[in-house]
């Protein structure tokens, strides 16, 4: 049976060590190359690379609103998926005779249905068209 009921924060202690190890690895590499590598800055060398042409303007520009729309729709779906995980971990373990089983099946189907409505709305609005 899954141990989802209990919360044991000390089991996350190794995660801290793991993150520290990964961060140290990255830091050692970057500092090492800074110390060992040569330093020969130059005016032309410091230019932004644009395939050898003189750079035109900056890259801090407005970009297509489509990326913003995708981020918004992503939020809707991702939050929905996060809500579904606890359900996926517990619902299959309910006994077949449990009355909660049918209730939760239909509730989650309704929850998914609301997302499908959002999806169809986005589809009709042309959010998912990339031409």
């Amino acid at each position, binding site marked *: 049976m*899954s141990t989802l009921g209990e919360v044991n924060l000390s*089991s996350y202690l*190794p995660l801290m060590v793991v993150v520290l190890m990964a961060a140290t690895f990255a830091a050692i590499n970057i500092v090492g190359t800074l110390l060992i590598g040569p330093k020969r800055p130059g005016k032309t060398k410091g230019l932004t690379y644009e395939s050898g042409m003189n750079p035109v303007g900056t890259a801090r520009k407005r970009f297509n609103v489509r990326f913003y729309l995708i981020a918004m729709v992503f939020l809707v779906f991702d939050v929905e998926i996060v809500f579904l995980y606890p359900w996926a971990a517990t619902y299959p373990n309910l006994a077949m005779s449990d009355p909660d089983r049918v209730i939760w099946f239909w509730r989650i189907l309704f929850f998914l249905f609301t997302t499908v409505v959002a999806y169809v709305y986005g589809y009709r609005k042309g959010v998912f068209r990339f031409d």
Partner: protein
Amino acid sequence: MTISAQTFASVLVFALVVHVVLLTCAYLIYVERKMAAYIQDRIGPNRVGFDFGLPILGFLKGCLGLGQSLADGLKFLLKEDYAPDRADKRLFTLAPVAIIIPALIGFAIIPWGGTATIPSFSILGLVHVTGGEVVLAGLNANIGIVYLLSVASLGVYGVTIAGYASNNKYSFIGGMRATAQMVSYEIPLGLSLLAILLVYGTLMPEEIIAHQRQHGWMVFAQPIAAVLFFIAILAEANRAPFDVAEAEQELVGGYHTEYSSMRFALFFLAEYAHMITSSAMFALLFLGGWEPLPFVSVFGGGAVHLGGGVAEVLLAVAVVGLKLAVLFGKAVTLVAFMMLIRWTIPRLRYDQIMMGAWQSVIPLALTVVVVTAAMVQWGRTDTLSLILANGAVFALMMVVMPLMPKYDPNRKIPLYGSRFNPMPGERVVTGPTVALAREDHPVRGSL
């Protein structure tokens, strides 16, 4: 000081596995170059051995070019770490760190060696380790598989920061593309994961392997979810055919155009570490984890006892090592398959990738989730019933697909100011726009 057996085992396993993975990453680059070479009828790296130019080590010359990875690493370290003048220096340095940390901590959740019991002991009388049953993974927390999703989401930040900090148009467009693609394919990743977790009914990796030992590998029961998951991990790792973020012909290097030396190497390393992590995850979720054969249990379910006499401990370590080798072998095979895909299938166009995610992969994944939920509700979660359900979903897909609105992938798209296909109602002047040239070649129409 007293620490629990699990903490001790986790740190030990992670410290071991992180080195194995980093070494494998270095040699995967060599393997990929060799594979590309053979596919393109070349030989590939075959010069660099381990002789370091010393005559006394002359017998180590060549070595099939196996010294290439070492030479590459040293060269990266010795190169100048340069940041363009107009880049945001702090973010520019932060980006490789932000991308390597999720790549390296991602495989903490994978149970490389199954479970083991270790006896109580103390190290030099300072640190006391309480004995008990442990999972030989970098992290044994009750969030289980959800950890994978959260870490996969973190990987997006490094790409976004790198694209923005470089202050380069190539980097910026590459970063935007990669971000949008990664968040889009995170949804099918989560949904296909949901479809199989509904069958497992647990989030713990060890219980997932136990379930597969009993009921057969999940790749047989949920083939559609397996394919979608594989597509999603390819897109998450920005691998071909989903590597538009670094499409050389359009964007030079994408978000790492401006990077050099070790910072560039970290991006490369992160990509390969990401591939290994997601392949190991695929092996864990669909291919039975450390069990080498489907439908047969080779190692059994019990915990290995790491204690007693020297011979017993050695035997136990051998079993754990075999389990690690099996899981790692499966992961590396999948990585080799990804490389084969890279050198076989041409890159997809960006609009095709995004439309593929939102208009086909996500609806299909949602359908699989709903059908699996219905099967669970019905109480039919054995392999045969799930295969039939998957067949039904596939048949439904085949029926619905011709009814979907068609797009001609090569149609002309109207653009403002285009000479070939202007926007409706727009009048575009064709011909030279420089005044001097116009005098020589008068153009019909007006400017």
